[in-house]
């Protein structure tokens, strides 16, 4: 077993890329500012010096172009890692992702593989306003042919990125800007986390909090808070949005009989809606309460910091939802949670 060390999320990502590129010369990294600038978020720091300009390639600001170049390279047998400075910018390349990457293996009847990873930060950071604060996983997870991976810890970031690079299908690997500095134990060397496998980050018996990426930490905080009142929440980190680990979700809800899905994305037709639909079908007779969602509010992200906090799912809102599900009265004297803003369904 490789020795774990404490490193940051961004270092874990870099480690995954460096180890894989050393293992396999067909892997290369391409994107805006990944080389000479050492990465907009310093994820690829030092990689140009290590691998040279042929394998760490700076591009113009032209997402459609370099995403398409990457897809073409993957079609002829290379294994590109395409970095979007943020996933918000992938929207200019969405035709490449949805019409080319997701479809080509199918439309060519499997004559070639498409081993490509699109990666970069998604979701809100701090006061980046509506166009740069979007959690777009539901958009890409909607499309058959794309895998969508969203790690929550440095160890998962390394293990999942290695698995994504080794996968012969296009993978959308969505990180989070606010987690790049997050530190955690990461095994050195070979550490691969298979795609499509969720993980219980904290066991509990009263309610399952299904979540992923950054919201995993919100849910862990919530679980700690609830435990003080004797409510044991299980935190299930999906890690991969597609393929979805349905079995793990159902197994957890069969233990706890209640479920709240917590996501950073918008509520309408989101990943949480998908999870709730699956539970309604596969765990109906195990449910002791209606499955619920806590999501961002159904609005473009406001620029103002205080409003941004109100829009994002807060621990207080998750707690209020859990308490409502359990039929537990609000603790007297507790601060009024912003949950009051959420419309009651």
């Amino acid at each position, binding site marked *: 077993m490789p020795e774990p060390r404490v490193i940051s999320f961004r270092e874990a990502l870099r480690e995954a890329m460096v180890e894989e590129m050393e293992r396999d010369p067909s892997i290369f990294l391409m994107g805006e500012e990944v080389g000479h600038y050492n990465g907009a978020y310093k994820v690829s720091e030092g990689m140009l010096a290590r691998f040279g300009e042929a394998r760490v390639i700076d591009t113009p600001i032209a997402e459609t172009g370099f995403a398409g170049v990457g897809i073409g390279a993957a079609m002829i047998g290379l294994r590109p890692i395409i970095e979007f400075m943020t996933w918000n910018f992938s929207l200019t390349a969405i035709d490449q992702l949805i019409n080319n990457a997701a479809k080509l293996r199918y439309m060519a009847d499997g004559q070639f593989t498409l081993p490509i990873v699109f990666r970069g930060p998604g979701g809100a950071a701090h006061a980046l306003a509506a166009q740069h604060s979007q959690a777009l996983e539901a958009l890409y997870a909607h499309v058959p042919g794309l895998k969508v991976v969203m790690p929550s810890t440095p160890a998962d970031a390394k293990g999942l990125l290695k698995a994504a690079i080794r996968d012969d299908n296009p993978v959308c690997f969505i990180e989070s800007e606010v987690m790049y500095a997050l530190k955690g134990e990461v095994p050195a060397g070979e550490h691969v986390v298979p795609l499509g496998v969720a993980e219980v980050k904290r066991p509990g018996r009263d309610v399952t909090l299904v979540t992923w990426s950054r919201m995993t930490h919100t849910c862990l905080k919530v679980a700690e808070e609830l435990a003080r009142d004797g409510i044991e929440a299980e935190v299930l980190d999906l890690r991969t949005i597609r393929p979805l680990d349905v079995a793990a979700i159902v197994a957890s809800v069969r233990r706890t009989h209640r479920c709240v899905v917590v996501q950073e994305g918008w509520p309408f037709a989101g990943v949480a809606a998908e999870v709730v639909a699956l539970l309604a079908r596969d765990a109906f*007779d195990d*449910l*002791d*309460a209606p499955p619920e969602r806590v999501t961002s509010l159904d609005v473009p992200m406001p620029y103002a910091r205080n409003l941004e906090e109100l829009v994002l799912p807060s621990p207080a809102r998750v707690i209020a939802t859990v308490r409502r599900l359990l*039929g537990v009265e609000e603790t007297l004297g507790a601060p009024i949670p912003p949950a009051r803003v959420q419309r009651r369904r």
Partner: protein
Amino acid sequence: MPVDVTMPKLSDTMEEGKILKWLKHPGDRVAIGEIIAEVETDKANMELEAYDEGTLAEVRVPEGESAPVGAVIAVLAAPGEGVAKGPAAGAGKAAAAAEKAAPSARAPASAPGAAAAAKAEAGREPFRPTVVRRPEPVESRGAAASVKASPLARRIAQERGLDLAQVTGTGPGGRIVQKDVEAALAERGGTPPAPAKPAAPAEPRPAAESRVELSRIRRTTAKRMGESKREIPHFYASSEIAMDEAARLKEALAALEGEYEGLTYTHVVLKAVGLALTRVPELNASYDGDAMVLHQAVNVGVATAVDDGLVVPVVRHCDREPLAAIVRQARGLLGRARSGRFASDDLTGATFTLSNLGMLPVTEFAAVINPPQAAILAVGTIRETPVVRDGQIVPGRRMTVTVSCDHRIIDGVLAGRFLRELKGLLENPLALVL
């Protein structure tokens, strides 16, 4: 306060009822539980009991007329209480009676009639149920369905035989949740609540019994046989058939091998039943409300035991298919029954059923009709027995068959005719191979 007497729902399928007779008349005093009318429903004639006491103030539906379920058919007034006129026929007489019964409480003459009526209507309790003699617990089922409970609570309650209507819900909005059901079960003093595990092992039970989950086939059989015996008025007719000739024919054909390989008495009887049914087609029929459906095809289901219960694969056209073809069909069906892989139409379309227990020491038995069919033939074993022939006692082979018939469409004489044809065909079996 006046109380409406409404047309009760006396069966699941009842939409309206006909008043056969009013046993109480306007002005009569009515006590709780007293029979006030006779009602004809789609199923039977029933008696209508009063739920409240008072004076029958008004009859809204005269004898011989029908009213939909829920409609007001009469109005009861408390003694000394007036009643507004209803809109229906016969109201004049009723109103007169009401006036006679309680003149002091009439609406003031100066008030506009309509306003007075509206006022009285508003004060009246709407839709009081009327208690009747009725065995089906339709109302309690309705109440259970409207109980608010989580799916998990419902599942546990169903598994443990708990009536949710008796449970108080403590969940959000008064919903019955898991812990409420478990508390109720604990109070009931049964076994402790099962651990909340996905595939919890069967709850502990006394060692003297074991609970075996019914297979899907068995459940279907249980349901259908229960329905059949409850719904269908069965009657039974038996006949003893000399099987000496049929046995000789069977042995001779079986010796030919080839297309008759595997020939059994079941096949011989199938062919005989097929022909007999063309001669008495009323047994190849179904009861359908006001009609009797005579089936063109003669498709005979053969009750067949399999590992997890009873299946009835269907041998088609037993009337016109030659015996060899029947053997072929039946062999194919039996093979598929044993492997549990029926073709899609192997089990459908039977118009009559044959149940043969002749391979076991069953002298005779009566079978339960397989709805929507109207008859089933139960075949006992062929036994060697002394018989009298030409004044001499000689050894003979005899088989007793019993036909169960749906008396709604089949009378005894038809059953007798069918047995006569069947007996004739089996005792002179050449017709079976011609």
